[in-house]
């Protein structure tokens, strides 16, 4: 596929991610921070987010599986996940975390388990989408083109 087509696909894909609420303005902030001194900034931060989130989600699964659930711990972990997802612009993950914290406060195990499931789903979706986006970027660069700025 030639550069022009790849770039168009990239722009369309990026726009869809915003339209569908997977990403919000904060992601644009990240992109704007990337420069020649740090050309891989977005990929680096997002990779950290993936690593961090997976640890948190595994830990949350274990914590909620205990006979006596430590809701303070659950809340602290969801707070972390909410923070990181908010910082990179992963809007749907962030929103799923907000609901989760309410159930923590109520110490509602069913609510928490439902939310955990939802957060995992949203995380999985956004991870997939971002990896696709990064692959498109790589293809553009490999074909000798520049990554278009999407407003």
């Amino acid at each position: 596929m030639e550069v022009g087509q790849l770039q168009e696909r990239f722009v369309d894909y990026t726009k869809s991610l915003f339209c569908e609420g997977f990403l919000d303005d904060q992601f644009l902030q990240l992109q704007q921070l990337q420069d020649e001194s740090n050309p891989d900034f977005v990929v680096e931060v997002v990779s950290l987010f993936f690593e961090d989130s997976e640890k948190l989600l595994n830990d949350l699964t274990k914590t909620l599986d205990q006979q006596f659930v430590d809701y303070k711990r659950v809340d602290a972990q969801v707070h972390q996940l909410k923070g990181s997802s908010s910082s990179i612009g992963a809007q749907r993950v962030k929103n799923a975390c907000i609901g989760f914290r309410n159930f923590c406060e109520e110490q509602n195990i069913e609510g928490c388990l439902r939310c955990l499931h939802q957060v995992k789903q949203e995380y999985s979706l956004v991870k997939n989408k971002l990896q696709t986006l990064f692959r498109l970027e790589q293809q553009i660069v490999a074909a000798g083109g520049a990554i278009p700025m999407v407003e």
Partner: protein
Amino acid sequence: MDATCLSKDMADHGEVPHVLAVDDNLIDRKLVEKLLKNSSCKVTTAENGLRALEYLGLGDDQQNISNDNCSKINLIITDYCMPGMTGYELLKKIKESSMMREVPVVIMSSENIPTRINKCLEGGAQMFMLKPLKQSDVKKLRCQLMNVGS
């Protein structure tokens, strides 16, 4: 001269403000570091209040030991919610220190809670900022702090 850093004096000498950024969240640390570097600041990060105090030479076992880092820091920006020591508690410790009390402290939080904000400002915080931080927030911060003391 007002010791509240980021002053005109510094700019005149071509010095770059040195900021200590404290946050327990790795992603947020990376983000705030880049935001500050993009605003021409030198940045040191710490992952919690204790590490921050140790860096500044204000740790419990560092009484009366002079520390170079202290005098180099022009601004401290810290997250509010941190395990062990909150940003507010860190703020208080800094304000209690004769060496560091003049240094502006900015507190950030993802939660917009007016009582929390007031408590921090009354505790001596220069500013309270809502996360996630944007480039425009950091630019505003730099401008505001540049005007103090000049």
